[in-house]
């Protein structure tokens, strides 16, 4: 788990007011950790807000303080890159419920003990509320663009639906306006894996010297499969064996793909809090922008003048193109200016994070004017 010392790299804002939540509670002393890149223009009209995905964080274009790896969207954000920090002031905040400096289940409650499962169940809209509060505190009243992939795309949609006059542009990549049953199902598997680990201790593992690492690693392994594609798994691993000439007739990681997944699980537990994983996936499974607007998705976009760009990938079976199409049809019905493209890329859902030059062109193009 992240320690306070490593997190100090990000700026942290403590909200002056309690944050009202969809569940009805008000959360006191909310902290929002964020990274900023580029320079805010005197007119404050060049702000691009990036919303991160499920297990992402605010380190979009700077090295991760725990893993030391480059920022998760380093290829997209920086000087001269599609989201050009020579032109834009780029903000990215750790979501509410997260574990990289923003208030989450691992944070201390007013009674001085970690919230753990006393943390209120939050929604995607609550995550956005915290970011809007950050913008207000920074004196930013307009966004040139709000951008997000996967859960970040859901936050972008929630932002424009609930604060229709805040963004001028909305860029939604590999996301959905309504979480479908298959995704809810996968997320439930992940949460059950965490909660089945005896070290979870009903969530009260903080300070016990034991944490549900096995459960969280299994959750990550299962989720990671959903981010890839059959084609990319076959190409990367096929049925190749891991550092051995033949099968061992045992339950070691004989196959490269097994070894890879175990590595993904093992490295994930070093940077992520298990309870945060529960809360964030819960928020995603609750996400239904149509339901929030009387069952008619188009009504979510009735009050905004923002321009939209929606991108999907042909090998993404977790958030397939059909979900983006539904969103686009609702935007059409709301007469919103919208671009939509299904890009061809081999990497499944993870395509939005990887080397897809066509995505770079679309992002740069959408932001250019």
């Amino acid at each position, binding site marked *: 788990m992240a320690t306070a010392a490593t997190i100090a790299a990000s700026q942290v804002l403590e909200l002056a007011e309690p944050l009202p939540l969809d569940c009805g509670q008000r959360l006191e002393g909310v902290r929002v950790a964020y990274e900023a890149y580029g320079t805010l223009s005197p007119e404050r009209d060049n702000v691009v807000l990036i919303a991160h995905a499920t297990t992402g964080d605010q380190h979009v274009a700077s090295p991760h303080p725990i893993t030391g790896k480059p920022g998760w969207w380093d290829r997209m954000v920086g000087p001269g890159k599609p989201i050009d920090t020579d032109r834009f002031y780029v903000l990215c905040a750790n979501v509410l419920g997260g574990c990289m400096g923003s208030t989450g289940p691992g944070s201390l409650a007013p009674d001085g003990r970690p919230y753990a499962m006393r943390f209120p169940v939050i929604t995607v809209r609550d995550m956005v509320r915290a970011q809007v509060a950050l913008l207000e505190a920074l004196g930013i009243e307009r966004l040139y663009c709000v951008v997000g992939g996967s859960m970040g795309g859901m936050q972008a949609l929630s932002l424009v639906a609930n604060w229709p006059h805040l963004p001028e542009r909305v860029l939604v990549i590999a996301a959905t306006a309504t979480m479908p049953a298959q995704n809810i199902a996968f997320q439930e598997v992940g949460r059950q894996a965490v909660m089945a680990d005896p070290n979870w201790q009903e969530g009260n593992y903080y300070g016990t010297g034991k944490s549900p690492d096995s459960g969280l690693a299994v959750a990550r392994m299962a989720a990671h499969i959903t981010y890839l594609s059959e084609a990319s798994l076959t190409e990367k691993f096929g049925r190749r064996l891991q550092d051995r000439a033949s099968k061992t007739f045992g339950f070691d990681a004989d196959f490269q793909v097994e070894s890879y997944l175990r590595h993904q699980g093992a490295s994930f537990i070093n940077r992520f809090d298990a309870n945060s994983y529960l809360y964030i996936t819960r928020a995603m499974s609750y996400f239904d922008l149509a339901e929030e607007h009387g069952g008619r998705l188009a009504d979510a976009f009735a009050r905004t003048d923002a*321009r*939209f*760009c*929606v991108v999907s990938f042909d090998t993404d079976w977790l958030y397939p193109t059909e979900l983006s199409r539904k969103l*686009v*049809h609702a935007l*059409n*019905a709301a*007469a919103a*200016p*919208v*671009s*939509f*493209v*299904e*890009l*061809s890329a081999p990497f499944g859902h993870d395509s939005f994070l990887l080397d897809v030059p*066509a995505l770079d*062109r*679309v992002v*740069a*193009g*959408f932001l*250019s*004017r």
Partner: protein
Amino acid sequence: MSRPAANLPPASLRPDLALIAGHVAPGSRVLDVGCGDGALLQALRDERGCNVHGMEIDPANVAECVEKGLSVIQGDADKDLAFYPDDAFDYAILSQTLQTTMRPDKVMEELLRIGRRAFVSFPNFAHWRVRLSLLWRGQMPVTRLLPVAWYETPNIHHLTVADFRAFVTQRGIRVEDAWYLSGDRLRGTSVANFRAEHAIFLLSR
């Protein structure tokens, strides 16, 4: 009778697109169905101050449009027009796309539902060169405007100027104006079905 082409603006645009661009009222709300690389939309936005939207089936073309700052969705005229509300646009434009659709009649219906007016342009299959090819060689024509052999052409519903006139009459669609082009030259109405390579109709309900 041949009318002057005074209304033909940007030389860079394909002649039928230039003609359409010249007849769209400034500031209109426009949907171009099958907008390709967005040349017409760009001209309408930049020169006529229109609020422009596009639909295009080829993702590479859509990406190019997005780069131009255009609002274009990847979609199929046969399926995706249904999701626009009635009267969403002042003009719905279908240039050189009608003959590639599965159900041109349904596409026309949708076009005139979502647009108060519609521009429809198509290659005229009764042009004399086409007729000659069929008459003398007995083969499907390959011409300047129909450059692809029968087995790989995207044009699956060939039609003629006379066919289209009969269609709009039968459906009670109003023809507000029509232009007939051979290359970039306008041809008269009476000889259009024989001499026009291209026809452009401005329609309303």
